[in-house]
């Protein structure tokens, strides 16, 4: 597959996509003719550059050139070691949702950008709630069933034994949640029901974000 090689700043670059350099990234000087094109408004240029820098830091020293960093995949463990994700109980789910590799255990730079753009300030509430749903859907079956919900509760209450809910409390809680948000009474929460609930939450969009 041939890479679209366009000179820097050529006006013939088709579409509104801007060719973009990463100024802060080590090695970008060595490849002046290998710009990376991102769709506009997915992330502002500087933010993208910062993201790429952070991504490069996860890579081993020899793979840090622009060319390679765009191809290579970073394993789950390395992504999880990011300080921004370290304390997050959903970190593994987040990585799995955004990973495009067949085994769902590594992130390419594009996936990483995806992750950041969804968790950025500029992402719409719809996008955020969509991905939140996928993060909470632990078994990837398209609905939140009781198992998903109990797993979610366990994530939220942490690892410690003292903070865990008892079985009866868990059942009560899940019953209440289904009572509230399961509109079609099929025992699970689907995406539209989830978004219905989330859209009414005053502070979901402000807390569902990660800042590099």
């Amino acid at each position, binding site marked *: 597959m041939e890479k679209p090689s366009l000179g820097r700043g050529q006006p013939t670059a088709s579409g509104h996509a801007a060719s973009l350099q990463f100024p802060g990234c080590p090695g970008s000087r060595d490849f002046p003719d290998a710009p990376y094109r991102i769709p506009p408004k997915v992330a502002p240029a500087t933010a993208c550059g910062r993201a790429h820098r952070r991504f490069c830091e996860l890579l081993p020293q020899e793979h840090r050139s622009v060319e390679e960093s765009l191809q290579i995949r970073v394993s789950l463990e390395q992504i999880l070691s990011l300080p921004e994700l370290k304390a997050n109980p959903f970190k593994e789910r987040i990585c799995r949702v955004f990973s*495009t590799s067949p085994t769902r255990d590594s992130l390419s730079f594009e996936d990483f950008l995806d992750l950041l753009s969804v968790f950025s300030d500029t992402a719409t509430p719809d996008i955020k709630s969509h991905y939140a749903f996928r993060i909470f859907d632990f078994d990837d079956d398209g609905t939140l069933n009781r198992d998903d919900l109990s797993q979610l509760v366990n994530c939220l209450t942490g690892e410690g034994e003292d903070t865990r809910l008892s079985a009866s409390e868990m059942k009560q809680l899940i019953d209440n949640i289904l009572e509230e948000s399961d509109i079609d009474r099929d025992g699970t929460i689907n995406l539209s029901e989830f978004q219905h609930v989330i859209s009414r939450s005053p502070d979901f969009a402000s807390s569902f974000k990660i800042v590099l």
Partner: protein
Amino acid sequence: MSRQLQGLGEEAGGGVRGRARSGSPGTGDRSGRRPSRKQAPKAQGAPGKRGAPPGRKERAGGSPRPGSPRSKQAERRRPREELRKPERSTAERTSEGRRKRDGRASFKEQRAPPKKEKEMPRKEEMWKPLKKHRSSSLASSTSVGESLSEEELAQILEQVEDKKKLIATMRNKPWPMAKKLTELREAQEFVEKYEGALGKGKGKRLYACKMLMAKKWVKFKRDFHNFKTQCIPWEMKIKDIESHFGSSVASYFIFLRWMYGVNLVLFGLIFGLIIIPEVLMGTPYGSIPRKTVPRAEEEKAMDFSVLWDFEGYIKYSPLFYGYYNNQRTIGWLRYRLPMAYFMVGVSVFGYSLMIVIRSMASNTQGSTSEGESDNFTFSFKMFTSWDYLIGNSETADNKYASITTSFKESIVDEQESNKEENIHLTRFLRVLANFLIICCLCGSGYLIYFVVKRSQEFSKRQNVSWYERNEVEIVMSLLGMFCPPLFETIAALENYHPRIGLKWQLGRIFALFLGNLYTFLLALMDDVHLKLSNEETIKNLTHWTLFNYYNSSGWNESVPRPPLHPADVPRGLCWETAVGIEFMRLTVSDMLVTYITILVGDFLRACFVRFMNYCWCWDLEAGFPSYAEFDISGNVLGLIFNQGMIWMGSFYAPGLVGINVLRLLTSMYFQCWAVMSSNVPHERVFKASRSNNFYMGLLLLVLFLSLLPVAYTIMSLPPSFDCGPFSGKNRMYDVIQETIENDFPTFLGKIFAFLANPGLIIPAILLMSLAIYYLNSVSKSLSRANAQLRKKIQALRELEKNHKSVKGRATARGSEDTAKGSPQNATQLQLTKEGATPHSASQSQTLDKKTQGAGTSSSASETMLPASQHLPVSRPPDVRPDSGRGRPHTHPWKSASGKSAGRPPH
């Protein structure tokens, strides 16, 4: 990749075109061309049945394909064709373009299978019905009306619009980045090609130019946006804090930053329009009595202890009201300083009111439905309680604990909402607590009143100690420091839910601050009245001195006496400056007390806990002193009251805003540092949510309360006779009347006089209050209607739920019956069913799919096709089940790849 693929797509389109032309050698022969179009699909359908063969792909990939050169090439090719066939109509050309497009569309379908194997198989499939629908609708229209060029043009235009919309809404699509990229490029290329093609001749060039400019403009806008975000001050600092302490602590800093911005604007107004003109163009220091330090104070005027109290040279500087002259115009610009002074004083309040109300309004717009939030308490706790910004494991642990507690609390609440243990004791304790707190409030109010009175006594004496001079400020700051913890201790008696407790606490601190401020103001007002009553005697004294000086005998009559030195002229007390100085001192002492509290209460405590922990009997970090938490409510209230003092004092001390800007700037850095170095995250982490508006409401209240005394003094107290821009006038607002009389034409003055007539103002006020009443009642009725509608929806939903379970079973049985009835229906049903049932992991697009599958009948008949495709090929064309739609078969593999690739035929 998409580029090569598109190149191939076009080649395929060109192939179709070439064949079509060869099939109909007679140019413009419509009847001849029609069969040729049926040949084309057969020619292409063979290789294309199951994705493009690799050979083709390579060939296409080999062809160089830079962005616009290719489209230029296409443009160049077109004239050549036109030369060959000059009689070809525009209609034909557009239909050709359309066919070319068809080729592309079909290619898109063709491209799907290889990609499908690669990544996100379900998603790809999801979007197929949409594409299919799009191209088929286009295709059907071709066969019906080939001659209708306008229609086709419109259709292409429509598609271009579609693509444009896709580009615009790309951000809102939950696709992975790779898919976004390819889709975006495709859409852009399409738009570029066909939008350009729609224009002719010169229009095309103009269009290209326009597109280029638009592109540049978009890029510029993006760069500018980036620049703007980079210019936001302290963004990284605040984000840092946000990630350590959660959004609630960060909300204080955002509020502080906002306050800083507001104060900068006020500072610009006051400095630009009052202080700088006065310094540049006004009479210099020492020229008139009000700008000169009196003889008695002269030798001490530069001492630091005097300056620290804002006496001496600072008192006679443009920082205070008294310095300004009552000259109507100053300098060569004929700048009307008294008028400007008054208008700036008014506009400071006007701007603050406007900005506070505007930000409140924008905050409320964000929250759509407050009333519905109680419907989803559990779901909100479940789905939105995690703060994804938390990057600190300690904070995360606290968050876990608080979430668990809130879960347990709400479960307990749900289980036994009405259980109360010993209600009488609770009531008694609450009454007791409120009684104690009211006692505290009264005590603090009396203390301040007493202290201010005493300070007036002190001010009459000659040598007073440092403590006696600053007693008021010290007492007020101490009260502000020690009362809130006292309240908190008392509030422990009440046993409220912490959230309600926090509100009570905020209300009590607010009452304390407000009471203190107003007691201070009342005492100050007493002082002002005292000074005003003394003014008459001082005025006489001044006149008498001057009279004596000029008329005394003993001086040579022939030589005119030099004017009396301004420092020797006796002068009034200038209550305005005195008020300004009080506010200035209060602000500075408040600032110092805040900083010292942070330094001692947070930093030294943290140091002590950190380092003494090694040699102490118990665990200091976990035990008694531990580290301090960041006190959000106290800090926000402190900030709000400080701003209230600024608003009150800025009219009498224009320099106050400058000091406040400095204060906010330093406290930004200082508090950021203190929070990061010596505070720990809250034990019960709560989110900022919309409490911002609560703070804004407090700010508005304080703004209003600080507007009152200023308005009162402006409207009802006479200004001092020998200091300030309004001296010599009966009231301060007379300056407006004076300006209208002297500087405006007479008819304007008449209009103003007419407008100021009470006969007009009272009806106007009446009208406004009526309007408020009307709007209020309208909003009330609307909200009532809203509530009723909500109730109705809820009732309907309940009904639906009950019906659904019954109906669902019935329809299932019914559909089975119809399935037996006709085979065609069976296919359809089966297909729609498939469309409706979510694929194993296609959670992302379930909804879209549902609408695609069930919503449009055309797509349903489309999906029927694959079943018929697997019938023997020898079948005559007229018996095809889809003959009614006149489906063009330029790309039969499309549907084949659509459904049957994923699902074996039956």
